[in-house]
């Protein structure tokens, strides 16, 4: 078991390095000069100032040296200074990251709360009308793009077309310390938008794996032995069905992170994805590298955790 965990962590670290290298290469191949960007966009830049800034930022050094110093620094937690925000990359990311994590975390929880029970329910009610409704809903859920769903929510709840009598805020962000109520009010719609698509996938996977477990040989044997139905379900079906569901949740992590990019755009949630888009537009190399690195690291880490969890539950995998 320990070997398995170590191996899995080792793989994760290798993947992390691969990501860092690819990001560095891609970012430095991007057109657009950050030095010109920094000097103010409405001026004709003075060549002297351009060169002095370039050497200040270390952009005139050979590319391998830049790579080396970045990797070295990143490992120590120092990802350099953001060009556009003039503070350290860690500080920039530090303010945004919790917001995205909060959004993703709440969305994932909502997705599980909605998806898991519905999946089990529809498996039990297989063939009936309620199952048909639920699976159709799930199909719809995986088919609606995040931003379409987001705007549908905005139309219904913010533009108040059905005249519910109140309008939810459609965008913006309030610090939780300033006004917790307003903060959570603004969290609901984006989290729900992100959650529904993932809930649909979870529901479908839960349903099919529960069905599979229900009809598996071991369960049939247990039934034949005369074991009570609810024990069969609770002890064996759920345990075995849970494993592919966990894999599915792990797979959805990618969708979750990708979904935050669109979700934060629609609802103007000032999180990490918004920072990433802004830094790409500003050609802020250190910030782009930092953001992509952090997001990919989270992705790789959660995948590793899911794999380990999977290994814990299913000894065959080890």
């Amino acid at each position: 078991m320990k070997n398995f965990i170590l191996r899995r962590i080792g793989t994760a670290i290798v993947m992390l390095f691969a990501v860092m290298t690819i990001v560095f290469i891609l970012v430095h191949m991007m057109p657009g000069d950050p030095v010109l960007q920094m000097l103010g966009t409405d001026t004709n830049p003075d060549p002297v100032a351009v060169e002095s800034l370039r050497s200040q930022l270390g952009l005139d050094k050979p590319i391998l040296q830049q790579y080396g110093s970045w990797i070295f620094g990143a490992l120590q937690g120092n990802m350099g200074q953001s060009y556009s925000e003039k503070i350290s990359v860690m500080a920039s990311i530090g303010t945004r990251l919790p917001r995205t994590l909060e959004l993703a975390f709440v969305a994932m929880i909502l997705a599980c709360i909605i998806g898991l029970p519905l999946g089990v329910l529809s498996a039990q009610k297989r063939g009936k009308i309620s199952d048909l409704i639920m699976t159709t809903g799930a199909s719809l859920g995986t088919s609606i793009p995040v931003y379409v769903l987001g705007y549908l929510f905005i139309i219904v709840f913010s533009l108040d077309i059905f005249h519910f009598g109140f309008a939810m805020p459609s965008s913006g962000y309030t610090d939780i310390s300033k006004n917790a109520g307003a903060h959570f009010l603004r969290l609901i719609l984006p989290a729900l938008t992100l959650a529904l698509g993932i809930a649909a996938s979870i529901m479908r996977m839960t349903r099919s794996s529960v069905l599979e477990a229900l009809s598996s040989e071991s369960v049939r044997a247990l039934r034949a032995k005369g074991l009570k139905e609810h024990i069969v379900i609770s002890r064996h079906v759920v345990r075995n069905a849970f494993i592919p569901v966990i894999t599915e949740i792990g797979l959805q992590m990618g969708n979750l992170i990708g979904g935050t990019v669109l979700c934060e755009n629609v609802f103007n949630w000032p999180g990490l994805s918004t920072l990433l888009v802004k830094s790409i537009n500003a050609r802020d190399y250190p910030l782009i590298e930092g953001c992509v690195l952090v997001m990919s690291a989270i992705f790789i880490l959660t995948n590793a955790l899911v794999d380990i969890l999977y290994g814990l539950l299913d000894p065959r995998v080890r």
Partner: protein
Amino acid sequence: MNTIKRCLQNKKFVFSLIILLPMIFIALFGSSIAPHDPLEMHTTNTLAAASVQFPMGTDEYGRCIFSRLLYGIRPSLTVSLVGTLGAFLIGSFCGLVAGYIGGKAGNAIMRTVETILCFPAILLAMMVVCLFGAGVRNLTIVVVILYIPHFARIANSSTIKVKKMEYVENDISVGQTTPKILIGTIFRNIFSPLIIQISLTISSAILLESGLSFLGLGVQPPEPSWGQMIGDAKAYLSVNMMYMLWPALFLCLTILAVNLMGDALRDIFDPKLQDSF
């Protein structure tokens, strides 16, 4: 023939076909149905409501939304179909080769290919677009790159499995040449999981292309694409809601149909998970 009969008996398959066939028809013949040139501006009549002249109204440039809708499916379908085909061909090839060679070399190939999976799709796509520019051609390339690992994995694991099975060993003992074994036997066996992955990839690719176009990183104006139309429409939600809702509806229907098709194919080719409806 048996397969076709099974397909037509599957309700999901038929339902998705009912949606997809008109979409394909629109993609091919949209230019003949469209009442206006999708690029033609009527700047004196911007953001108009639906009328006889403009069945779905006009956008902020006074262009006919209905006509743009009919043309707007093409980029999505092009990117997703061509991209999936590319990913399928290249990915399957990599996976087959890696699986057949096996051992450390095969492993190395697979690990390299799988580094692409370390990135959430949209991040990689955004960076590539910033690097090489937007547009249908680059988006197709992005789709190919992003989905190679999925096909490679399937091809690889199936190849390994089949390699161990008896009749391949029989083939080897009979003395058939290597490429024939590779392509003939193994490929026939991994057909069904690949088919399913193809439909999954197509729907993911449509989502990716429309998402990127929504962000302005996809199909470039003035050519229309559904995702791009939704993105343009968001500034005018309170003025003309239907500007956003029409392309949104068509986009969702198409993705739904592709997903249903994928489900149907899974039912047909992987009977373990068959549903009663």
